[in-house]
């Protein structure tokens, strides 16, 4: 079972935890074989939001929604259940300065 852990931070706290610490934590988690993928993101002002409507692709500058806390990175974990996923997510260093949303990944339904 996969869980996506979204790391949210207020913009002024993006660098509150040094990169080196995040890197070390992520290496420990990877060494345990539980990390499917994990990346940090550039700030939201580098984002581009896309919409396809009536055959036309439009692009807008910035994120889909302005929020106080912004998506700063993510981990995709492989865990047996929510308790295990929460225990892993609690080891992501920005949990101290921001918040981490743990979302179960769902299978898409193949029936048309």
């Amino acid at each position, binding site marked *: 079972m996969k869980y996506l852990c979204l790391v949210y931070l207020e913009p002024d706290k993006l660098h509150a935890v040094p990169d080196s610490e995040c890197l070390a934590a992520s290496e420990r988690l990877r060494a345990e074989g539980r990390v499917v993928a994990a990346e940090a993101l550039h700030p939201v002002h580098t984002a581009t939001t896309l919409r396809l409507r009536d055959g036309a692709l439009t692009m807008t500058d910035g994120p889909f929604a302005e929020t106080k806390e912004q998506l700063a990175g993510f981990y995709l974990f492989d865990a*047996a*259940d*929510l*308790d295990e996923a929460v225990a892993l997510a609690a080891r992501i260093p920005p949990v101290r300065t921001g918040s981490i949303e743990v*979302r*179960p990944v*769902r299978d898409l339904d193949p029936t048309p």
Partner: protein
Amino acid sequence: MSVDADAAPADIAATVAALFRRDSRKVLATLIRLLGDFDLAEEAMQDAFRAAVEQWPRDGIPANPVPWLVSAGRFKAIDGIRRRARFDAIDEAGDVATAVEAIPDSAARWDEGEEIADDPLRLIFTCCHPSLSADAQVALTLREISGLTTEEIARAFLAPPATLAQRIVRAKAKIRAARIPYKVPEARELGERLASVLRVIYLVFNEGYSASAGASLTRADLSAEAIRLGRLVVELLPEREAMGLLALMLLQESRRAARTGPNGELVTLEAQDRTLWNRAQIDEGVAWVERALAAEPTPTSRGAAAPARRDSPAVRFGPYALQAAIAAVHASAASAEATDWAEIVGLYDVLVRLQPTAVVALNRAVAVAMRDGPAAGLPLIETLLADGQLQDYHLAHAARADICRRLGRHADARASYQRALSLVRQEPEREFLAARLRDLPPDVDPVRRRSTSPVILFKDDR
């Protein structure tokens, strides 16, 4: 399986009904583990009892009805999955095989008595999982563990049934999708997870306790149900805080009949007719307090096994046991005057260290005022009010008002009663405060008017 083939059908119907009341939650708890799904298990449990009504008059009542019901429920569920599959597309046959295979073979598990014995605890910890909202935990607990209907829960919480139904459906959907595990937490998480369970039970209790009397019979039932849940947890997991909460609820409940006057008005602890207190509940509550606070077992006597077996407590006593101990001191006093306030202040000293909240500090200040006199309590209360956290808490102003009244500072008392009245929400409390305000003498010579009877209103005192 031995059978009793002589029972008449009417007796059997009564037996099944009694079994349903006593054991349906146990059957459900095991079916949830075997089937891995709340809704499927609920349906299977109902089917199993229906099968009992049909088959037992013919085959006799099995010697061990609970395993029979679990087994019947499991087969009904597998049957149901197969039957539904026949109506669906053929290429889904693979899915059915997977679904049926995924259901563990219960026969292989019958030896594991411990697994089955732990199922009701698994159900409790899952319903009170901290990833669910407090509202959802309460609703799910009353639905799945107490077996109340959605309508009954809605009535007790004065909420529309549709809201309650949606809350329960959403909680179950989250358990399924996020895979909230169906297990008893490990020893290192036990304290925190048990606290979540006890919080839910105390919320249920308070919902029934703080409601006024009269128009609210179903809400008194909620307190009784909370006490039943408290007993269940103590029986399954004899932890100190679980005993503490059970004791606290019993001791508070013991005063129910004395707490309100003939017209539903509030009667404070000091003024209560102590002959109306329920002695059986007090005796039981005091016994649980003593067990909760008994000396901690030595590490060697507890053994080294990490996932502590549940015959000895793994977690220290905490706020519930201490609050229960305070309630026990009140309950043991023959009269209000005979209350051992020194003992109560001592217990609050410990409580305030474990739970350093402004409300606990306020209750401690009130106890100090009772032990050492109002002049000693007033500066403590005024410091707390100055901190700001209690500015909107009516009982803080009521406490200051009462202490000022006892000091003969009637103008100060009046101002504080008025502030308390502007914040109070419950009708009996409002009437109580209004009566206190009316009884204040006019602002004349404070020395001559000094009152001697302490009348204090605070949360523990009702």
